[in-house]
């Protein structure tokens, strides 16, 4: 398969993740859609790394995985804190910090 197929697939997955973030209201699902977008970026990185025949793009993908793990840990910590304070699990109701 041509590398272009992988790139097009990656942009499609990125667009699906972006739509999910815009449409859904539950913070958990928004975090999941964020994972979708990060994985689309990973796929593009690995595909470009294959295109130029250089393994350094795969290192980038691994670093993106680590950053995604950190984001998950902090995001889920915030979710648990929201749950403990009996706040609504809805991003439209959690708008106190909105400027």
């Amino acid at each position, binding site marked *: *398969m*041509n*590398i*272009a197929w*992988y*790139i097009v*697939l990656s*942009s*499609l997955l*990125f*667009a*699906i*993740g*972006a*739509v*999910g973030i*815009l*449409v*859904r*209201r*539950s913070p*958990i*699902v928004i975090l*999941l*859609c964020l*994972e979708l977008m990060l*994985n689309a970026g*990973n*796929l593009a990185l*690995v*595909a470009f790394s*294959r*295109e*130029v*025949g250089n*393994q*350094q793009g*795969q*290192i980038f*993908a*691994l670093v993106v*995985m*680590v950053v*995604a*793990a*950190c*984001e998950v*840990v*902090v995001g*889920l*910590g*915030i*979710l*648990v*804190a929201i*749950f*403990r304070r009996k706040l609504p*699990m*809805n991003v*439209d109701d959690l708008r106190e910090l909105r400027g």
Partner: protein
Amino acid sequence: MEAVLFFIGAIGAIGGAIGVVVSRNPFYSVLALIAHLFSLAVLFLLLTSAFVAAAQVVVYAGAVMVLYVFVVAYVGEGGESAWEPIPGQRFLAPLLGVALFVELSVAVLSSALKALETHGPSVGAGFGNPAAIGNLLLEKFLLPFEATSILLLIAAVGAIVLANKQKSKEDAGSAALTQRNREAGDGGASPGHSAAVPRPEEGPAAPAPTQGARA
């Protein structure tokens, strides 16, 4: 054969992604994301990056998704409200998604990257295997590698602080008392507290309301 595997992986990835977005129950969203991650691992294998595929399955689909399942089970489903802050957002968002997809595809495909239309250069059998990635990580990219480890540490500490129980205001003074009790109770037995300054005049007289103060 490669094309068949690619389309299987691509359909799995797209189906998983759509499943994440449209599932009503967050638990099904997590399961769909796991399917999506496995399909992506197939695509990574097709791109001859074995180590990234293995890390994807073990770390991502294994560990991170278990964390998600725990939190979904702890927090519960949480109904979605029908109220929209921006009118027509549910119809505008897919339009924006389509526009984003077209724009990204056009931007990449109309670029002057000639190698996009090829399979990429022929690489040896060692391309992307753990030995090659390990060499790169520990020699050329040692500093970013250590920086990500510090980032992980900071994230772990931040999660503990965030998910910790909030102390009420009248407990503000009892935190110090708890700490003092702990020092007095442990004495010098535990190696972690051996460096603490001993306070012999306060040690035995203090009561032990440790559990009550924390609840």
